[in-house]
């Protein structure tokens, strides 16, 4: 029993790191642009399919393939922002963009269905199924590498945010868009690039997700529900919160799965409800006084 628990916790943390990657992208997009990108879930799946195709058709290793998929997803993100999100203005912008990103998600899902069909697949390489013995527990290599990758990318995002001029512009825009404009920051460019970055990280998340889960075009819904719960829990707009909430929720789910595999995913919603009852702004959320 103790072993099962230990394994579940380790699993949870490892997977949590990967989810953190996707959640950080989502929360970053919210923090800077004030929009909830519902398409994030299906974009992860897109990343998974891309990695899958690169591997099966061009025999490019999954991790090497990231050098292609991450920039590709970045471009897709910037495109989505430019084509659909940029033109939304007005008082109900946040709600409208949510609907828009939902629609975009639907289109991407449809395209994926058309190209890949409805069958579930899972990316399988020589190393995705091998595990290593750590103190009596078998941990899959892919999980470890995925976690390391996630840490590296989150660290990269952090460095970008806190050590570069661009990052400073991003943080300034997050705090006060008008003030940022006044000091000469090109808010539109910051928004577009941030959206691109937020989506680019899904490439990495998608690759690991695809290698550790069976998925099809429909899997985006489940993903986005979890991601949304995670960022609300961690506080929408808080990067640190997204990281913490991911680790916590995935570990919690992993542990609950031991007893109740069918209901484990309910922990997300239960936690969400509890948090929202007491802290409508999420745990680390800014008490933003923006007009909606």
């Amino acid at each position, binding site marked *: 029993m103790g072993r099962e628990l230990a394994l579940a916790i380790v699993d949870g943390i490892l997977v949590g790191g990967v989810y953190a990657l996707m959640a950080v992208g989502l929360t970053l997009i919210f923090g800077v642009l004030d*929009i*909830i990108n*519902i398409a994030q879930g299906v974009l992860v799946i897109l990343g998974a399919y891309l990695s899958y195709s690169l591997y099966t058709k061009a025999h490019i290793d999954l991790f090497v393939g990231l050098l292609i998929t991450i920039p590709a997803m970045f471009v897709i993100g910037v495109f989505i922002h430019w084509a*659909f999100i940029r*033109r*939304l203005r007005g008082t*109900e912008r*946040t*709600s*409208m963009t*949510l*609907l*828009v990103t*939902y*629609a*975009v*998600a*639907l*289109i991407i*899902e*449809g*395209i*994926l*269905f*058309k190209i890949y069909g*409805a069958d579930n697949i899972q990316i399988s390489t020589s190393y995705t199924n091998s595990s290593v013995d750590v103190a009596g527990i078998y941990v899959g290599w892919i999980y470890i590498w995925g976690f390391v990758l996630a840490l590296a990318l989150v660290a990269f995002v952090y460095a970008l945010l806190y050590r570069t001029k661009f990052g400073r512009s991003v943080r300034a825009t997050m705090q006060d868009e008008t003030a940022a404009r006044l000091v000469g920051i090109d808010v539109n460019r910051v928004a577009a690039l941030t959206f691109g970055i937020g989506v680019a990280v899904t490439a990495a998340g998608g690759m690991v997700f695809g290698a550790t889960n069976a998925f099809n*075009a429909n899997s985006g*819904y*489940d993903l986005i*529900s979890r991601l*949304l*719960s995670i960022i*609300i829990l961690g506080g*929408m707009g808080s990067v640190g919160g997204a990281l913490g909430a991911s680790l916590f929720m995935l570990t919690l789910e992993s542990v609950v799965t031991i007893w109740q595999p*069918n*209901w484990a*995913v*309910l922990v*997300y*919603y239960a936690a*969400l*409800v509890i948090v*929202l*009852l007491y802290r*409508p702004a999420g745990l680390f959320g800014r008490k933003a006084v923006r007009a*909606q």
Partner: protein
Amino acid sequence: MSKESRLDNGLARPEKALKGGGLLVLAVVAVLFPQFTSDPAVTNYGVLALIYITAATAWNIFSGNTGYISLGQAVFFGSGAYAMGIAARDWHLNGDIVFALLPLCGAVGALIAVPFGLIALRVRRHTFIVITIAMFFIFQLMAFNFSFTGGSSGLQSPFLNWPAATYNTPFYYIGLAYAAGSIVIAWLVRRSRFGLQLRAIRDDEDRARGLGVKTMRVKLAAFTMSGAITAMIGAVWFFYLNQVEPQTGFDPIFDLTLVLMAFLGGYGSISGPVLGALIIEPLTLWLNTQPAFNGGGLSQILLGAVFLIVVLFMPRGIIPTGGEIITKLRMRGRPAVIPTTTMGPVASAPTISSGGAR
């Protein structure tokens, strides 16, 4: 305009007569529709269109008036369907008497709406949308996992001993009753003080609260009404199609379609959802009969694309946007109106625009 006529909130007489006449014609057509055709395939369009008109109007009663976009109406729709199925199965009911269960389904919808609303309505608008999505998934999950909901195989509806040729007709009239009823309720809400408070909440909730409007109560009331109506029409739908499964009773596409209908026809107006449903539902049904559309992903692409077009280019609906374009064309070249004032040296000269404030 004199003060007295404004007290009456009057449209000019001829306009009123035209509106009334048009509505009458529409009502007559709607009532007589099944008599003109005996082809079940055609009346099928009618039944489903009416179901969606009801659901979209119910959605609008809450979301259109308050500006809180709900993507969780399927929670009520599916719950109503399941409630009907469970009650009929456990109480061993068959035949026409099952229709008496409809109010029960409405009550179920209301009962769900209250705690749902108490949690969801305390947060800001975008978080609210997310919570409705989350609730939706919770309910779908529960439908899959509980045994009393029949798990993944769902529930069958009770048996109706009606001849196949006229099977659709009673459903048509029930649907019509619900559609008419929900439109009337939406209209009553709109012109009432309750409706005014809802719309004030939409524009500036904090200010409304500061003026003494009991915002939570008002929002919850509208939310519950919307939920009860949707639950009842969900039960009708279940009865009509004879079965419900977790993914059909709780279908994310359902929610999106409702929103699309409301936006297409005119967000916030009463005729909007009706128009939207009348356009989209028959179209969807027809498209589904085309072989190219079966399970290929094309339906999602199309739905998403239409959604984008509507939200990005005509967010206030096809009629208001069309009306705006016509007004713009008409107003070109007209000088700004300068009213005479009745109180000495006053005020700047305003241009009065009667509608469509950006």
